[in-house]
């Protein structure tokens, strides 16, 4: 008796099941067909969820708007406060509740890929006609055990911004930005002395680990020094070049060339002083160039970050993009990601807004060529570095990691060399922590 009513719907639903099976097989055939038909089926009107951090929101939003306007798929962007991004990703991953697509600060990529948060997209990337032109540092950091998990999304380089208005006021040549760190310090000092008042020579985020990494390390690289070994397991922050760089900044602090608020600056407002015309020259993120004012208080000049005795380098930062390991619609997600790298998106959206393109073959385009400052930043992509370490975030970015006390001691303490020598082993320990 009990079996009969159960069996009946089963018999009735058999044709339906068969029909479904045929439909699945057919759709599977379509998916395995030519790339064009695959792309067509990927733009099926799906809702793609996409998370990014506040720091790179503007660039992400422009790309999302561009994609949504021209596709049936609709990307839903969620912006998470930058400081909270890592914990949110970790919590979502723990609950297997990650969005389809999420951006990651490029330096956190090794940590995410090694923990399996991203889907392997090696084959998809290799099918792109411009795969060899994708920003090399982003591809390198998104590669784990020879498999690729991420593509470049936003490129954010550290470069010197100097205020030509203040240079003129201080009697400096506005067309001669510093070419050595010593010149940088001299020019900053001159601005503080000659202009004074609320205007200071330079600024940095004194309690912001990521800011130190982004602004100081290029000077160390430009001088031929290293901050870590290649595997990111050993700190070499006590190298002679590094000591020289920290000593220069330490002296600027002692001489009062930098506002006292720099010591407690934890990151959220470290770029807010320059656009107000209060700072002479400082390393800044290239992505802020498009938002810089051009008036009688501020005229921005751009120069590479120099080493102690010359040379130039940059920290190639920004975000990478990947499909989450838990996404149920990787084809649709890839449709969006691959579109963000297309000529159309890169030139008409990214370059048009004075952002750095993610492809080296598009470095020279109608928009960037019109502004020599953007040309310079584009050129720096090839000269810059993105350091690799599995524990990068927990060592350098985490406000309670070992890096901030060491850097603060070196910059604001009595003696930079001793602070770095004493601090290097603690950083190494954090880098090696399992």
């Amino acid at each position, binding site marked *: 008796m009990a079996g009969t009513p159960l069996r009946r719907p089963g018999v009735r639903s058999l044709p339906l099941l068969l029909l479904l099976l045929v439909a699945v097989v057919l759709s599977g055939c379509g998916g395995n067909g030519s790339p064009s038909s695959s792309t067509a089926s990927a733009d099926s009107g799906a809702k793609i969820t996409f998370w990014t951090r506040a720091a790179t929101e503007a660039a992400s939003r422009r790309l999302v708007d561009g994609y949504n306007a021209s596709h049936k798929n609709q990307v839903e962007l969620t912006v998470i406060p930058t400081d909270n991004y*890592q*914990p949110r990703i*970790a*919590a979502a*991953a*723990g609950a*297997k509740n990650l969005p389809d697509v999420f951006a990651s600060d490029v330096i956190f990529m090794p*940590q995410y890929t090694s*923990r*399996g*948060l991203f889907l392997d997209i090696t084959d998809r990337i290799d099918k792109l006609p411009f795969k060899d032109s994708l920003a090399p540092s982003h591809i390198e950091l998104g590669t784990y055990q020879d498999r690729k998990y991420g593509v470049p999304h936003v490129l954010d380089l550290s470069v010197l911004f100097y205020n030509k208005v203040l240079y003129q006021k201080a009697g400096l040549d506005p067309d001669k930005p510093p070419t050595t760190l010593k010149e940088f310090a001299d020019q900053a000092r001159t601005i503080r002395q000659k202009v004074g008042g609320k205007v200071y020579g330079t600024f940095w985020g004194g*309690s912001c680990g990521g800011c130190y990494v982004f602004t100081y390390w290029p000077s160390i690289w430009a001088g031929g020094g290293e901050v870590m070994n290649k595997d990111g397991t050993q700190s070499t922050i006590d190298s002679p070049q590094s000591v020289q760089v920290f000593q220069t900044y330490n002296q600027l602090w002692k001489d009062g060339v930098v*506002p*006292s*608020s720099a*010591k*407690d600056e*934890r990151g959220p*407002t470290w770029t807010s002083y320059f656009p107000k015309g209060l700072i002479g020259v400082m390393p800044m993120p290239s992505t802020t160039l498009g938002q810089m004012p051009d008036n009688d208080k501020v005229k921005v000049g751009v120069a590479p970050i120099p080493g102690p005795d010359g040379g130039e380098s940059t920290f190639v930062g920004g975000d990478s993009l990947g499909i989450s*390991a*838990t996404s149920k619609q990787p084809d649709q997600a890839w449709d969006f990601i691959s579109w963000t790298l297309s000529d159309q998106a890169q030139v008409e959206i990214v370059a048009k807004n004075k952002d750095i393109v993610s492809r080296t073959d598009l470095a020279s385009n109608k928009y960037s060529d019109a502004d020599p400052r953007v040309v310079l930043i584009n050129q720096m992509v090839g000269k810059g570095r993105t350091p690799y370490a599995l*524990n990068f*975030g*927990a060592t350098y970015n*985490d*406000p*309670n*990691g070992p890096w*901030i*006390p060491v850097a*603060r*001691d070196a910059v604001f303490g009595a003696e930079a060399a001793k602070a770095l020598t004493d601090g290097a082993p603690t950083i190494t320990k954090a880098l090696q*922590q399992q």
Partner: protein
Amino acid sequence: MGKTASMGAISTQTHDTTSLQPAGRRPTRRSWWRSRSLKGIGYTTPTAVIVVVLFLAPLVLVFWMALNRWPLLGSPTLNAPDNYTQIPDNPLFVQAIRFTLKYTVIITIVLLLIALGLALLVQERRRGVGFLRTIYLLPSGVGFAAAALLFYGLYSSEIGPLDGILRSLHIIDKPFSFTGTPNAALFSTIALVIWRFAGFQMLILLVGLQSIPSELYEAARVDGATRWQTFRRVTLPLLRPTLALLLVVSVSGSLLAFDQFFILTQGQPDNSTLTMVMVIYREAFFRFNLGGAAALSVVVLLVLVALNALQLRILRRND
């Protein structure tokens, strides 16, 4: 006679009532009990479910996680007791224990004294007392995280008014950093916690004060007791249960401090204001070491249970 008759009536009534239930109806009584116990189960089930789902299950999970290497995605692997043996190697946690205990002692004493002072101030019905009580209690209506952000702005030399006020009063001549040194950061945070919680503690103490019978004060006055003697011999002893409650709440809350330091100081400068829960948070969400974070949570939980048991024991003995 009448009394006996009425007694008899009652006894008859009683008898009648029992006689209404024949021997064969006994199961009805049992079913009444059953339905009563079912009713009881019905009433307690929602609470039991909430306790199991929101308290017991996570607790068991935390104990289990602490015995495993627990990845963000994928299946965990047993690695006991590594998560526990690694704890002494975590210098941040050791440092955080010291700081959290220091903070707990200071805030519990200061908060209790201030709240008691406020409660005594507005204890008696006088003109304007209602207004003062409202003013003192008002900050309790602000969310703690929101309050911490408010103070973050207040202390900022860029956007906050404090810096300008202190300078115009010539108390300072250059920007003062309210979170720049370990002590400044600690006491700036304590000021925030007092602002946010003193009013609430005052309210609880006020309830305790109001429940002391006024006759006792009158008797003390008749006996010629001074104000101080009345406070020591009458108010304090009778306020002890309220004080005990506040002590337990304050100590537990302070040992679990997170929001205020996370928002206001981020544990800085140089990790001097790092609390135990912040280290757990860091371990889980920056280092993705969920097993290690669970082990630290278990340690904090055991410390809390032990401390509360000790406090309750001492207070009970005094009773």
